[in-house]
């Protein structure tokens, strides 16, 4: 890619960021949102049941869903960027702008919902991590609200979903030494 092409691609970057939108559904399925990579909400749908959760919960629901949609849009922008600038340039951008929020390609929407639904373990010991999902795990809030002492396992959170089974041959060296190893009887 020549310098001129790179400049032209960079010129288009702002437009890509403004044009690219991402959509996400809240893990509770009570809200859906579409947002640009710069966080501008373009569409919002609230499930009728969402309103029954009370005004505070609706507010949090919208904030969390908007963040998920923005993350999806940023991820899409990165993908667009990689297309127009080439992978090496996109990696250079990631190096200073931070990693893309979602995992690449196929698994993206599902893993995104899961990562929001399940608070990360460190959030349990650091309550100031306020960006963690606050709508989804109502059980913990209710427990503390009733006044009964929480059981010893109250602070625990569900573990991450089991990792996808890895193919046994992940070592490139093994593969290149004998690419047909796994297919021999």
């Amino acid at each position, binding site marked *: 890619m020549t310098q001129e092409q790179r400049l032209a691609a960079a010129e288009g970057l*702002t437009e890509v960021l403004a044009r690219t939108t991402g959509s996400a559904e809240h893990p509770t399925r009570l809200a859906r949102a579409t947002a640009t990579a710069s*966080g501008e*909400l373009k569409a*919002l749908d609230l499930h009728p049941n969402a*309103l029954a959760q009370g*005004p*505070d919960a609706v507010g949090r629901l919208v*904030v969390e869903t908007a963040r998920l949609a923005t993350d999806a849009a940023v991820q899409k922008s990165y993908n667009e960027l990689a297309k127009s600038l080439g992978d090496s340039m996109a990696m250079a951008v990631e190096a200073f702008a931070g990693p893309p929020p979602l995992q690449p390609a196929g698994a993206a929407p599902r893993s995104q919902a899961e990562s929001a639904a399940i608070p990360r373990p460190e959030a349990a010991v650091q309550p100031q991590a306020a960006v963690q999902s606050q709508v989804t795990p109502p059980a913990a809030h209710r427990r503390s609200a009733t006044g009964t002492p929480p059981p010893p396992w109250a602070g625990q959170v569900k573990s991450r979903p089991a990792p996808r089974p890895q193919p046994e041959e992940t070592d490139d060296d093994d593969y290149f030494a004998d690419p047909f190893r796994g297919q021999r009887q």
Partner: protein
Amino acid sequence: MDETQRAARRVADTERQVVEHAARTGPVLGRASSPDGAVTVVAAPGGPPQEVRVSPSALNMGPRALADEILRVSARASRDAASRLHRTVERVADPAAVRALAEIGFERGPDDDEFDGTYLRESR
């Protein structure tokens, strides 16, 4: 010193000035509310809404109307955030940096502070 180094130094200087200014004045946040107070949104420039407050009576609007109102108010909060970012950067950075802000999508917008004492607003 070549052109790239000069540019890098100017970027670093501008960043330092803006960061120092923001450290004194607090984070730049935009805010907007519906006229009846049903929905209030707080947003940072270039980010999704940080806080959405819904009044208890707003739940009576129903899901569609409430979602539309949140959309309207959050768009205004984003514009307010962009405007405030402009005013913050204007105080410390050179005009080129301020123009660059507009180029990357942060519009200056009218000063629509309710407390600046003029009724002569431009029409929208």
